[in-house]
């Protein structure tokens, strides 16, 4: 193959994961399978971004929101008829953008260095390997703390739930802001009080989302970026405050927008329920459901089933 | 024509084809022809722009008579392309078709080694030499004639099978149309109307 001058596409292809981008025949499957345009950013369009690369539009590609908002969840990869690893290509473009000095517009987490004990749990928790441990001088003495690469952080909050000291937080979904929402008004006798944590990505259909808001005030809906964001203490606080049940909704395995949040959350809730069993107070009042991207209308069935169960549970007591 | 190869004198003709630029674009057929001329038993070696064209075939036919050739080597394209053509040409000039050997210096040489012309030239020479070597030991053969049963069989009763069976039947040939399902018609029979004329499918 004769060697033309290195185009933008060549550079992207040179980065591992960036291959095969020229195979894209712009069919648009990835754009509709991905939820980001529908839920967050109307300008988000992976098909167009790949086109920009092929047409050597470097600056437009670096400034495109697609480069920065893609969370490499690979929902689009099994759907692509040309089997292009789209998130790999976008990752390569993002790497070039960072090298060119561009920055991520996303709301990322920040570390409170006075609290951080450098235990490294957030380093393992993060699906994007954004935090890493560094030796730094803090308040006059050398200390080891976690430092977050703002360009890699996608703001999912899995690390915030994992940090035992609450030393890492993200504006809008800090522990206090979530705990403050865990309130359900007192109800008439027999009416169950339910708190439902819903991740932003597991309900594809807009009318599923609006349906959740239509419940009376005995159901409190708390939106979180990822089901991996909640931690068992929140469920315990809810039960302690007299709320009858906690329902956590996350994505189906393999469809988690932040890659591993749904596994982490499934692990937490299962272990919490095992602890209730061990304390012989296991009565299934904390439940985790994984809603598939095709499970339209399932959220209604899950919430109704939970309310029914809690009503029967209250009855029995 | 040529007796047994024991005592008859070997008279090989080598024809190196240009095939337009397909061969000549990478190697020089004239050089290959000159190389072939020096090989033992070769009495005629020449390059020709299009061996498979009438001009090329006529050249071979005239040479067979003029040089009293009893072997022919054609260095050109693949055996799968024009072996029948050159066999026919050679037999029209009275030489047994199996006394012709081809050297594939197009698909398996110039087309595959465009990036390495010297290597391609070396290879072309070797391939011609090998063809001459084999030609040296070729013996006249006759096509084996076998009787033909005047019956045909069409396997599959869909639209293609039916149209084949009808045509064969119209040619007066007894045809058996075999269909796995209980009825012929295949996929087309299942269709409602067919594009673009929207007529019925049965």
């Amino acid at each position: 193959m004769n060697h033309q001058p290195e185009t933008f596409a060549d550079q992207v292809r040179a980065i591992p994961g960036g291959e095969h981008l020229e195979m894209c025949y712009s069919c648009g499957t990835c754009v509709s399978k991905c939820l980001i345009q529908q839920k967050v950013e109307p300008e988000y369009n992976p098909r167009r971004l790949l086109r920009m690369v092929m047409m050597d539009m470097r600056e437009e590609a670096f400034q495109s929101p697609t480069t920065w908002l893609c969370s490499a969840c690979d929902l689009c990869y099994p759907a692509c008829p040309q089997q292009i690893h789209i998130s790999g290509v976008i990752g390569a473009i993002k790497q070039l953008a960072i090298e060119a000095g561009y920055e991520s517009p996303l709301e990322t987490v920040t570390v409170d260095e006075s609290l951080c004990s450098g235990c490294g749990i957030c380093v393992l928790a993060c699906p994007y390997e954004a935090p890493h441990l560094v030796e730094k001088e803090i308040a006059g003495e050398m200390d080891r703390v976690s430092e977050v690469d703002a360009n890699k952080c996608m703001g999912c909050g899995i690390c915030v739930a994992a940090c035992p000291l609450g030393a890492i937080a993200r504006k809008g979904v800090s522990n206090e802001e979530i705990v403050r929402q865990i309130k359900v008004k007192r109800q008439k006798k027999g009416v169950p009080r339910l708190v439902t944590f819903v991740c932003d990505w597991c309900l594809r259909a807009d009318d599923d989302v609006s349906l959740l808001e239509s419940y009376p005030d005995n159901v409190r809906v708390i939106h979180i970026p990822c089901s991996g964001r909640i931690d068992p203490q929140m469920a315990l606080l809810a039960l302690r405050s007299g709320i009858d049940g906690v329902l956590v909704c996350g994505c189906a395995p393999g469809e988690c927008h932040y890659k591993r949040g749904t596994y982490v959350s499934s692990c937490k809730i299962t272990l919490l329920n095992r602890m209730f069993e061990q304390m012989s107070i296991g009565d299934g009042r904390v439940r985790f459901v994984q809603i598939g991207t095709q499970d339209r209308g399932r959220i209604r069935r899950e919430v109704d089933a939970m309310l029914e169960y809690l009503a029967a549970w209250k009855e029995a007591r | 024509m040529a007796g047994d190869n024991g005592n008859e004198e070997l008279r090989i003709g080598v024809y190196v084809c240009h095939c337009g630029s397909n061969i000549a674009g990478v190697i020089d057929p004239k050089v290959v022809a000159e190389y072939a001329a020096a090989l033992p038993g070769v009495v005629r070696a020449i390059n020709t722009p299009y061996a498979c064209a009438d001009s090329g075939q006529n050249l071979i036919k005239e040479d067979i008579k003029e040089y009293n050739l009893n072997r022919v080597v054609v260095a050109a394209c693949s055996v799968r392309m024009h072996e029948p053509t050159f066999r026919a040409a050679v037999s029209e000039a009275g030489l047994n078709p199996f006394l012709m050997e081809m050297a594939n210096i197009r698909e398996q040489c110039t087309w595959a080694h465009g990036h390495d012309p010297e290597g391609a030239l070396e290879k072309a020479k070797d391939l011609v030499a090998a063809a001459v070597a084999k030609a040296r030991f070729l013996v006249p053969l006759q096509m084996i004639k076998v009787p033909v049963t005047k019956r045909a069989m069409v396997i599959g009763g869909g639209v293609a099978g039916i149209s084949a069976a009808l045509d064969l039947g119209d040619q007066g040939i007894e045809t058996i149309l075999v269909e796995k399902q209980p009825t012929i018609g295949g996929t087309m029979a299942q269709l409602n109307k067919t594009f673009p004329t929207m007529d019925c499918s049965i």
Partner: protein
Amino acid sequence: MVDAARHPKVDVRTYTEVERVEGYVGNFKVLLREKSRYVRTDRCNGCGECAKVCPIEVPNYFELNLAPRKAIDVAMSQSVPLIYNIDLDACIHCYKCVEACGKLEAIDFSIEDKLVWEDIGAIVVATGFSHFDPSVMPEYGYGRYPNVITAMEMERLNNSAGPTAGNLIRPSDGTNPKRLAIINCVGSRDKRFNPWCSNFCCMYAIKNAILVKQAYPDMDVTIYYMDIRTPSKGYEEFYDRAREMGIHFIQGRPSLITEDPETHNLFVHSEDVALGHVIEREYDMVMLNQAAVPQPDVDTVSSVLNITQSPGGWFMEYHPKLRPMDSPTDGVFLAGACQGQKDIPASVAQGSAAAARAGRVLHADEWEIEPVVAVVWEDRCVSAKGKKCGLCAKACPYNAIEYEQGKAAHVVTAKCHGCGGCVAECPHNAITQMHFTDAQILAQIHALLAEKPEEKILAFRCHWCSYGGADLAGVSHFEYSSNERGLRVMCSARMDADFIYEAFRLGAGAVLYSGCHPQDCHYITGQRVGASRAERLLKAFEKMEMTPGRFRVEWISAAEGDKYARVINEMQAVLDSIPKEKLMEEIERLRPEMERRARRLREVPQVEEALGYSRQLEAAMVGKEA
């Protein structure tokens, strides 16, 4: 259809399968199995009384299992021939049908399958194609969402002879849909399933849309497409007509269908590529325009008829452009979609073309086949001297060699296809193959390795597959090392171990032993004979501690040009990786062993003379150089 049954010269044998095919062009013997219908074909007049009384219903393949047929029934009302058949597995032997048949007495449960040998001159294969089953694509929900149907199911629902007599209904509640979506390229142009474009489904989608629009003018019909392909005469105008009728076209391949569990309505999620927006539209019903795929039993037909397949499973033609109707096997012709996806006009055209090609053979009084057959030298055959052998007979795929201890083996010329397996297997070199004698091949080997043999890669290729693969590498301009020197024989079975030893004795750098893939061999089991010999050679060279990679065995089909180039380049890389002196030292070390193993080659008639001539030729070749 009907006139095929009435044609005097055409004998229609339905419910019949081809079990075995023997012989060669002009002289095929075909074993047919006429499956028993348990109904006498000479008596049944197709009145249908039996079906009326039969209490048992079974799924009907013809109606794509949307509607049942009785245990005793015909596939469709216009069946040709109109003869009923019984599905014995479902039949409960209540014999009501026998009573209904009355004095015709056409039903007879004692009928057995009939096996018949037919003498045939030429065979046309027109076994057609099958449809992609979209249930392997969970994103479209076929099989889970009742109102997602396939194109063929739509055909039957729309068909006045179909299960709903042409009334297009939603399977979930039987109502007429108001909003219908058609999704193109389901399973086509998709690396996960079938990489090819299925040729006719764009037109097929438009036809169904127009039909539905005509029947239900107020229905909202939308076609989701990537590209609309209307390649033939009158097709683009047909597409315009659809647009004029108000059928919507959205460019954007849907990624997902979700279903509202209560109403069973479907939501198609796609991008409208023209606008760049994600859209989610509600429909009452979705038709999946599924891909054309080869028949599921294509491997059986392939091995019975001994014809090869191109990638994907379509039958391979002799030459895609010059001889698309011929199969590589002489006397066997291909017609219709079994050779590759095509629409009805093309299928009919190819049917007639195949008939014409078959006619060439059938109208000839006799047919010529290449005289590359095997011939036995009686004086050298040990069996004639009473010893027990018969290796040649064992190697012959067509048992064309009659062997009896005490008598020399004898080749039945008519049955011999010329693979050369017997020649290479005979330990006493008592058998030769016309036009590919040992002397001729030996002379070629010497000529190809005359100069700097250690740099050369001597490639033995079989005519039908790897020689074709080498051609395709050239046609596609895949570049490979020019140190390769090709040598053609009819089959890998002909590649005598002595040739390989001789090549290494002459100091060849590397040798490639290449033939067809097992199922593709033109001579049925020829490849297996070659493969086992190759295995023995590999072990022998391994024991001799020859550098691995210098002798390589690869099966390459005529469609794998890229593989051929890659194998040669890899062998060149092996040669480059061995330091020159180390290679020369290995060649010298192994030369005596190769000499010992190739010694019997000297006894073959003409070989002495071939070696003499080769010395002259090499002198001329090298001399010319020096």
